[in-house]
């Protein structure tokens, strides 16, 4: 695995089971871009309220493209706005007329019910950002996508809808979305996982389904990996302590035992994920903090970079 494999894609879709740290990894990938003088745009479907805790960024993330840090832009895509923009662009001559009827309840309802329309417009908008459709010119779009259960239907939608839509602008749009999603030179999925039983099971299924749709999985990032620094001999000494009486000492020994035990579990699941991903797995050490900061994200970016740099 090399950094160039990551950088030569225009769109990186980051997904995984809920709660594994998709946003942290997406932002770390953004930092990795900016550290190399590139301009990334972090894209999400979530709206991050200004002032709510989001890795210490104070601006929040909303529909306006704005700078989060260095050269990193961030934007939240809202399906309704994306749809309005799409119509504005594609039916521009008639827009004044459509703008009025767009407000009608019939049409609103129709857009909710039309097969995959909103999802397709949304993913199209994400792609568009990386292709001179944004405020700036971006080198890469990092899409912090919804978790597994919701991501697969979105990625799979074009094929599904294509089967039933035989004409109209939607069909053209779907073919266009299919075109870039399934082009391994343009789009790749990064799967985020954690070294836990249920997460690993879901990750294996996720990798399989993404690939069966025909989209490339670039690599899997295993987050929260425990990496004990105790040697085998030291482990023996710690185990030999049993459960000390004195509370303070007990806590030290217990936390050391926890670190050792979890490191073993982490190694086991890293092996498993390596084997199902053809060795394309990166690990990120567990950070002992309740809430991560921008400095932590930069550290994660460095960890990723180290593993994407082949030994000389």
């Amino acid at each position, binding site marked *: 695995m090399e950094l160039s494999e990551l950088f030569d894609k225009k769109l990186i879709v980051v997904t995984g089971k809920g709660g594994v740290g998709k946003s942290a990894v997406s932002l770390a990938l953004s930092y990795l871009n900016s550290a190399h003088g590139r301009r990334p745009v972090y894209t999400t479907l979530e709206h991050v309220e200004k002032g709510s805790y989001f890795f210490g960024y104070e601006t929040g993330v909303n529909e306006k493209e704005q700078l989060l840090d260095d050269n990193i832009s961030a934007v939240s895509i809202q399906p309704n706005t994306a749809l309005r923009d799409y119509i504005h662009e594609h039916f521009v001559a008639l827009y004044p007329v459509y703008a009025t009827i767009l407000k009608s309840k019939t049409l609103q*309802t129709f857009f909710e019910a039309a097969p995959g329309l909103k999802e397709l417009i949304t993913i199209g908008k994400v792609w568009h950002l990386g292709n001179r459709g944004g405020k700036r010119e971006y080198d890469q779009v990092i899409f912090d996508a919804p978790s597994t259960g919701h991501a697969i239907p979105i990625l799979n939608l074009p094929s599904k809808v294509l089967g039933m839509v035989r004409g109209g602008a939607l069909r053209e749009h779907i073919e266009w979305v299919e075109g870039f999603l399934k082009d391994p030179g343009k789009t790749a999925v990064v799967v985020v996982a954690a070294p836990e039983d249920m997460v690993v099971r879901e990750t294996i299924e996720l990798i399989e389904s993404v690939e069966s749709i025909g989209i490339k999985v670039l690599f899997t990032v295993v987050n929260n990996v425990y990496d004990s620094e105790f040697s085998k001999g030291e482990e023996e000494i710690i185990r030999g302590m049993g459960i000390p009486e004195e509370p303070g000492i007990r806590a030290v020994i217990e936390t050391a035992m926890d670190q050792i035990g979890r490191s073993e579990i982490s190694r086991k699941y890293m092996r498993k994920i390596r084997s199902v991903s053809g060795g394309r797995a990166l690990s990120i050490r567990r950070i002992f903090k*309740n809430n991560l900061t921008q400095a932590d994200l930069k550290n994660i970016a460095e960890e990723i970079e180290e593993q994407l740099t082949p030994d000389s």
Partner: protein
Amino acid sequence: MSGLDAIVEEKKVVVCIGSGGVGKTTISSIFALEGANKGKKTLALTVDPSKRLAQSLGISSASESAKISKRRLKNAGYGGSGELAVRVLEVKKTFDHLIRKVARSSEESERILQNDYYKSIADSIAGAHEYMAMETLLSAYEEGDYDLIVVDTPPSEHLSAFLRAPLRMNAILDSAGFKSFFLMDKLSFGFTRVFTSMSLKFIQKIVGVDVLHDMWRFFSDFEAVSEGIKERAERTYELLGSDDTCFILVTNLKEPTLGNTLDLREELHSDGYSAEAIVVNRTVAERYPSAVGNPNMAKLPGDKKLKDKLIRNYKSYKNVIDAEAGILKELTLDYKCHAIPELSTEVKGLKDLYSLRKYLFG
């Protein structure tokens, strides 16, 4: 008896709700197992597309519905004469079933079931998943075979994503807008005349004639069953709002998860649902109650190198423990919280789940 014992004793429906990755599946499993433990005929209903609840209770994800044998329950430490069955939601099947149930004739239901639009997309209409989850709950409740139903919901950051989805879908299916299509159609003798409408011309431009025709047929046929479906959705809301039902909020102590949980609780309350308990899952603080103050270096084992490593490791954990303890303390001032420690081993089988029950039940 702690508050949560009373919930399992008295409620008929327990809905676990919370953001992704907080461990709703684990908590639902603990509640469902406790139902069986307290002698109830219990159903664990998982509406999560990844079928994790079934897996965590040791049932192959291939099966749609299965029972956990009394022997397995007993081996894990659970007593009593209760039972536990697990059911996995299947959106399309439930939808088909629902249409058959409320249609007045089999011709009526077949027309809908055979429609191309319905066949390829009905289970992807916004809110269909959640709608069918609630339908499954209502059916199971009305079957009357269970004393307690525990529902494991898909991750939701906002209440609207889950609870309000049926309302949204109802609005689509029952839209006055679509009704006006049909009315226009009836007045203008045939489908082609509908295209005189400006909006329809526009829609036709976007999706093409074929899909529009399929959609039009679907919604037109659907009218016949929409009253029945609406009525069932209303009954579901009644059940969720009744004294028989209780919501359990599951969270961890990280932002934005915790903030979302508290917002969710506000939303539930303002909508008139009961959500008393917050379960804080996987806390490190709860696991190391003895981690206070600075340990005496002299009493640690090994040479200086090992001592340093031990202290460094301890300080890492202590960072998290102190942060969590602070948040928990504040949280318990305002809410009824039940903290569950993160286990040092993995939660995999019934025995691991049994070892966690003492944090929720007496």
